[in-house]
C-alpha cells in the first residue's frame, strides 16, 4: 500500500492516513484480512511521528475497520458495518460526482467548487459524525 500525507494540507496527519486507509478498503485496494505495516515501519516509511500512525490505527480499530493483533500488526476487517459504510460512501461519492459535473457544466472552475464545498462544510455546525 502506498500512502501520501501532506504536511501542509490543513488536516491532521492521522486523519489523512485514516481516510486513505478507508479509501483503500472502499476501492478494493485493501481487502478483508489484508495486513498493514506495523506502526514503526509505516512511520519510518512515511517519515512521520509513530504517534500519527498509532492514532490512525487505534481510531480505525475503534470504528471496526482494523483489527490490531498484538505482535503481528494491523489487519483489515470488513465486517457488515464496514461493508455497509463502504457502500454508503460509494453512493455518496457518485452523488457528489453528479453535482460536481453539473456545476462544471454551469461553468464553475474546480477551485471555485472546492471553495464552495469547504465553506459549506464549515458553515454547517460540527456534528458528532465529523471525524
Amino acid at each position, binding site marked *: 500500500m502506498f500512502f501520501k500525507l501532506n*504536511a501542509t494540507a490543513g488536516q491532521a496527519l492521522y486523519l489523512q492516513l485514516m481516510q486513505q486507509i478507508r479509501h483503500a478498503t472502499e476501492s478494493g485496494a485493501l481487502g478483508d484480512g489484508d495486513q498493514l505495516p506495523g506502526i514503526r515501519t509505516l512511520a519510518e516509511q512515511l517519515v512521520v511521528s509513530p504517534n500519527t500512525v498509532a492514532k490512525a490505527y487505534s481510531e480505525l480499530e475503534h470504528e471496526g475497520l482494523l483489527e490490531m493483533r498484538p505482535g503481528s500488526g494491523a489487519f483489515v476487517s470488513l465486517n457488515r458495518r464496514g461493508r455497509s459504510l463502504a457502500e454508503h460512501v460509494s453512493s455518496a461519492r457518485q452523488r457528489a460526482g453528479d453535482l460536481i459535473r453539473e456545476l462544471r457544466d454551469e461553468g464553475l472552475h474546480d477551485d471555485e467548487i472546492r471553495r464552495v464545498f469547504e465553506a459549506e462544510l464549515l458553515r454547517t455546525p460540527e456534528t458528532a459524525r465529523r471525524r
Partner: protein
Amino acid sequence: MIPAPVIQTSQLRKAYGKFEAVRGVDLCVEPNRITGFLGANGAGKSTTIKMLLGMVKPTGGGGSVLGRRIDDPGASVEMRRHVAYVSEDKRLYGYMTVAQIIRFTSGFYPDWRKDVERDLLALYELPPDRKIRLLSKGMRTKVALLLALARQPQLLILDEPGDGLDPCGVEQLLESVVARSGDGTSVFFSSHQIAEVERIADNVCILDKGRLILDATMDDLRQSYRQITLAFPELPAESEFQMAGVERIRSNGHQMSLFSSGNTEAVIERARTLHAMSIDVTPVALRDVYLQTVRAR
C-alpha cells in the same frame, strides 16, 4: 493518568548582564512524543536547552528533566546519563577516527545499540578510519547523531540537528529520529527549519525573543488554524471580528483577511450576517502560523 512530562520548566530565565536571553519560559514536554522547538536565531533556544542540561545556570525560575531538578548538579549528572544531546557546534574529539570515537563513547553506555550503530554507519556512509577533524561539517553532524541515537536514551535533545546537512542528510536525520521515537525515546529538537518540524513533530513550541509564544499540537494547528479572506460591498469595522480565535485582522480595499486559531465557524457566521460577498477559507502551514504569531507581537 497523565504521564509525567520529560521536560518541565517554570518561569525559566537567563540574563547576560542587561540582556535577557530567556524571559520566563514555562515548558511542558510530554513523553513519547516528538516536540519541535522553533525560533529565530537568537530567540533563546540554545540557552534554554543548555539550562535544561545544567550547562548554563538560570538567573530565575527552575525546572526538571526526567523528573530531576536542573539546578541540582548531582541530579543533573544522573539525568545526563539518560539524555542524549547533540549540540549546535557538535564538538567532538578531532584526533580520533570515526571508529575510535564510536568505541570510546559506547564504553560509557551499557544500553548501547550495536544494531543502530551498524545501521547508521551504513546509512550515513561514514568512513570508519577517517579522523574526525578531516570530516566535512555534514559528516561531523552525522557522527554526533550516531553517537546520540545509538545510546538508546530516554530523551533525545537535538539543537539545530539539520544544520550543515544536505537534503538527503536531512531526510536520513528525520528517518532516524522517527525510528528512535518508535523505540520509545522522547525527542525535543530545536530548529529554524520549519519544514523539518512540520513533518515529524507531534507538538511544537515557538520561542520568540526569549518568550514562549506558542505551545500546541500539530494536530490542533492543522485542524484549527485558518486564513479567512472576506470580501464586502462595504468593509465593516475590524472590531466586528474581534472575537475568540481571531489572532490578526488586516483590511485592504473591499477585502478583509483574518488569521484564526479556531472558532472558524463563528467567524464565517459573523461574515454572513455582515453580508460578505465571498468567504474564502484556506488552511495554513506551520510557516504561516510561525510568521503570523511572531509578527503579531
